[in-house]
């Protein structure tokens, strides 16, 4: 309980930062909105034969891509605190070892809520119409948030290990950016060379995109070449990925935080 209260103080600090430096929030929402508009109007023509049009497949893809970038954001934030010696100060306080990293992941999760709402509204304006009803749509968003949250823990670990905000931001981006394209997020995996196809099918980004498409009521025509497990059970597979990531990186991160030194 105490640990959660401490974590929330750290989360509050992050929200306070947003009010002091509003550019961060603005940039964080403008970028995905820009992506929605660009993809919608540049590749919109691709979906002539897709039920509901390309935008129905695009939105889940961009949602997942955006929450995937949480990894880099968290990593950068933590490395920055490390660089400034703030982590040292926090570690000299009588607070739970998990508080600082937990607070950071919660803060980045809250930021994702705002970003997803703005993106969803933008999507609606350009023709995105999920058909599955309120419950499943909500479940879809919850999955997106949880996926971002799980990746945030990977980011915590990366940030604590690297200690250099610029480097870790670039490295995480170099790692996640191709991951979001070697997937079914924007185009069909069937047109990829064979080995890439396998990769794309097992890629957590793909399973997430397929899961969310399913929850929003659209057939995932961009994946499922083989009868592989992830393409048949995207929701289960995505949940497994998230749980595994959390189970590995949450304890690793807390331990790293405990022993971290500038």
């Amino acid at each position, binding site marked *: 309980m105490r640990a959660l209260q401490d974590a929330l103080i750290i989360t509050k600090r992050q929200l306070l930062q947003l009010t002091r430096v509003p550019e961060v929030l603005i940039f964080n929402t403008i970028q995905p909105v820009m992506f929605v508009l660009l993809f919608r109007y540049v590749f919109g023509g691709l979906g002539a034969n897709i039920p509901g049009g390309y935008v129905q497949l695009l939105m889940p893809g961009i949602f997942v891509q955006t929450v995937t970038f949480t990894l880099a954001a968290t990593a950068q934030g933590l490395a920055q605190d490390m660089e400034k010696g703030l982590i040292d100060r926090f570690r000299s306080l*009588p607070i739970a070892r998990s508080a600082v990293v937990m607070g950071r992941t919660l803060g980045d999760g809250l930021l994702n809520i705002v970003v997803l709402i703005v993106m969803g509204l933008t999507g609606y304006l350009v023709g995105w119409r999920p058909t599955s009803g309120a419950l499943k749509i909500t479940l879809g968003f919850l999955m997106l948030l949880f996926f971002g949250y799980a990746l945030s823990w990977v980011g915590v670990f990366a940030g604590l290990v690297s200690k250099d905000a610029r480097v870790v931001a670039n490295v995480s981006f170099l790692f996640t950016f191709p991951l979001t394209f070697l997937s079914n997020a924007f185009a069909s995996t069937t047109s990829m060379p064979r080995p890439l196809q396998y990769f794309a099918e097992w890629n957590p980004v793909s399973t997430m995109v397929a899961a969310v498409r399913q929850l929003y009521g659209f057939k995932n025509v961009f994946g499922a070449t083989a009868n592989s497990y992830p393409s048949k059970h995207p929701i289960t597979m995505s949940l497994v990925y998230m749980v595994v990531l959390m189970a590995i990186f949450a304890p690793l991160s807390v331990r790293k935080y405990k022993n971290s030194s500038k």
Partner: protein
Amino acid sequence: MKSIVAEDLKKTYRNGQVKALDGLSLDVEEGTVLGILGPNGSGKTTTVRILATLLQPDSGHATVGGIDVVKNPKAVREIIGLSGQYAAVDETLTGWDNLVMFGRLYHLSAAQANARATELLEQFSLTDAARRPIKTFSGGMRRRLDLAASLIIRPKVLFLDEPTTGLDPRGRMEMWGVIEELVKEGVTLLLTTQYLDEADQLADDIAVIDRGQVIARGTSDALKSQVGGERLELVVAESDISSAQEIINRLTHSASTLDVGLRKISAPVANGSQSLIEVIREFDTAKIHPLDLALKRPSLDDVFMALTGHVAEEAVAETNEKKRKRGGKK
């Protein structure tokens, strides 16, 4: 009662290649100030980090307020304040935001945290700057805010790692004033510094460290006398050298040294100002007019030279750098 005890602390980095602490021991009596004096890289920060529970020693044993820092770090954190070598505050937030946040993290209620923030900003003359982001603060203000943040719970034991390094002379004076006030209130303070005058000014007792070991311990007067205390240095005209030297030797009961090129005579003196007066009186009678006359107090460099036989490495590099710059300007 001892507030801080460290026994035979050892710490290496890079798989044993760098010996940061090599059997360091020290203790600090409750309510007193210990200055750890040493050049860059001598192990000051490592010592502070171990005592403040941020780092585990490879071996050795340490207690703060009677609590073992390795076995019970959380209890130690309840009674200490730490202000590290670099101001560690959230730069995007205001001074007020920072203090309230840290107050909350020390588990004060919202009202208590606000009240304490107001109080501390007042105490550290930061009230006017309270609503500005730290980014806009001067170096001195940042350090003061950082110090304020470490005092939120009125710690029994306070660690200050090089509190004035990087500050301009004015910031340094202000910081000294603030620290002296704290000491009056009875906190036990361990402070590290690279400057003998700072340790002299603030500390009851000084531990000189070099290569991760305490090489001397005592009051600043005791240390200075180990170095030979003050020296009288004077420059006289060529024709006056021999008579001047004769007077100096007689008055100081010592064999003075002479730098022929600079015409500089130098001699250790036991009672500086008294000797100075005597020398001037005798010179006046002998009609010798010194071109330059000064009492030199020992610096950290002198202390080092005397204690270790080698110069404080980083300090030397810095002096050379300064010389080079000065030379460049000419």
